[in-house]
């Protein structure tokens, strides 16, 4: 904790304008049952989603409930390693805790078989060549480094397939 008081020309102490209170709090997060399944799937090198028993949509990562029906999702679905970039932006802003060199592509990736896109990093392509509809695949860390963590997926990269037609993913925008 420190404070700064501005010294005026006459030597008078001015008002205190800053008071630094460092705050550090530690938490034990709960992944939850559904997200734990997803994380364990990542440790096995696969994407595990869940299907809503009411609307039959497949959510990945599953969060344990269908956000529109408000019921538990239970049926597990193993999804493809490939998907479509529905939309994206190119991040060129530095921020605290950033681990990726800017500029980088932050994309919404719709895995084949899923009904919800999620955010993913796109690499192995110049930023000005990325496109909506681009087909991509997940690149995983080596098997011995796989773990129940998002870090198991290094990034997504183009998988060489032709771009998906806009009509096939426009409802996911």
């Amino acid at each position, binding site marked *: *904790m420190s404070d700064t008081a501005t010294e005026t020309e006459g030597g008078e102490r001015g008002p205190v304008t800053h*008071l630094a*209170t460092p*705050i550090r*709090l*530690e*938490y*034990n*997060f*709960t*992944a*939850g*049952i*559904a*997200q*734990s399944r997803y994380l364990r799937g990542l440790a096995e090198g696969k994407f595990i989603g869940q299907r809503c028993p009411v609307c039959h949509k497949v959510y990945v990562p599953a*969060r*344990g*409930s*269908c*956000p*529109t*029906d*408000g*019921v*538990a999702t239970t049926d597990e679905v193993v999804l493809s390693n490939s998907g479509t970039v529905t939309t994206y932006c190119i991040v060129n802003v530095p921020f605290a805790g950033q681990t990726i060199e800017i500029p980088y592509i932050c994309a919404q990736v719709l895995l084949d078989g899923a009904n919800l896109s999620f955010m993913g990093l796109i690499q192995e392509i110049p930023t000005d060549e990325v496109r909506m509809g681009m087909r991509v695949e997940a690149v995983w860390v080596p098997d011995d480094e796989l773990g129940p963590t998002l870090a198991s997926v290094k990034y997504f990269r183009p998988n060489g397939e032709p771009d998906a037609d806009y009509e096939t993913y426009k409802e996911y925008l």
Partner: protein
Amino acid sequence: MSPPTPRQGHRPVAVVSFAQADNLRREGARNEVEMLLPVIGEVFANVGITKDDVGFICSGSTDYLVGGPFSFVTALDAVGVWPPRSESHVEMDAAWALYEAWVRLQEDDIDAALVYGFGKSSLGNLGEIFALQLDPYVMAPLWPDPVSLAALQARALLDSGRTTEQELAEIAARNRRRALTNPNAQVAGEFDVAELLAEDYVVSPLRRHTLPPITDGACAIVLAVGGRAYELAERPAWITGIDHRVETHAIGARDLTHSPSTRKAGEIAGALDGGIDIAELHAPFASQEVVVRDALSLGDNVDVNPSGGVLAANPIMSAGLARIGEAASRILDGTAGRALAHATSGPLLQQNLVAVLERG
């Protein structure tokens, strides 16, 4: 059957359903959404309705329990707000979410509302987290923990001669004995007062038994208006009065042995008119039960905390709403005619809400 005339508002509003999660020291595997999901399901199933039957939804929670911003946003997934709903959130105990819903129900475009609150107290260090609730310039930098603050209040109360350490032990023992009949309670049992008094102080003059447990929990209530309430429940618990008041934040400027905000809210809600059968008080420390009880002039004829109160389970952010739910349950099951519920927020009972519930 007709609702009693409310003291405030012009549309009679009742609690028709209450559900709560098991109060646990550590919920473990389930996250907040998974903890809430069965509670929301049960509160609707109790009265045979769905999310499509409520015109307003309001919740209470705080980001600092979970350690990330917008924690209430994902919690909405436990309800399924689709098609889009009229929905709001308070960063307060969910008892205040109920207040917002009660206000909203005064307008005649809707006739039922869902209220819920949730929080997992086991994720972080409450002693540090609650220091951040204090004045950020002159109090928070000193990191006072809530138990030490409560000890200041308890000391003032003991010195005033209005209670004794013996009475504080008796309050703790009574609450936890009552909790034996509450299947959702976390701490319940028969405790020997002499043994309790033999415990060491945690922070003098507070011993461990005078402190609330650390609890993960959630609860939900369905409110309904007039005839709709009678369609949903045989004996709706009518909210005939509800009010909340705040005191200054400056602890040194308050008489910590009294709770004028509780008394004023109680006056407005009609809690001081007598005839109260049971009261559920949100008094996390045994010493605070003395203060709240006095503020509401609750005599020995009033059954205080039949659920065991927050000394039996203290799910932060839903504990106040649970008091309303527990009080309403005694009307819904026909065992009480007039019940009082109290909720608190802030350090040392700074802010208080009082509701009076009555049978029709």
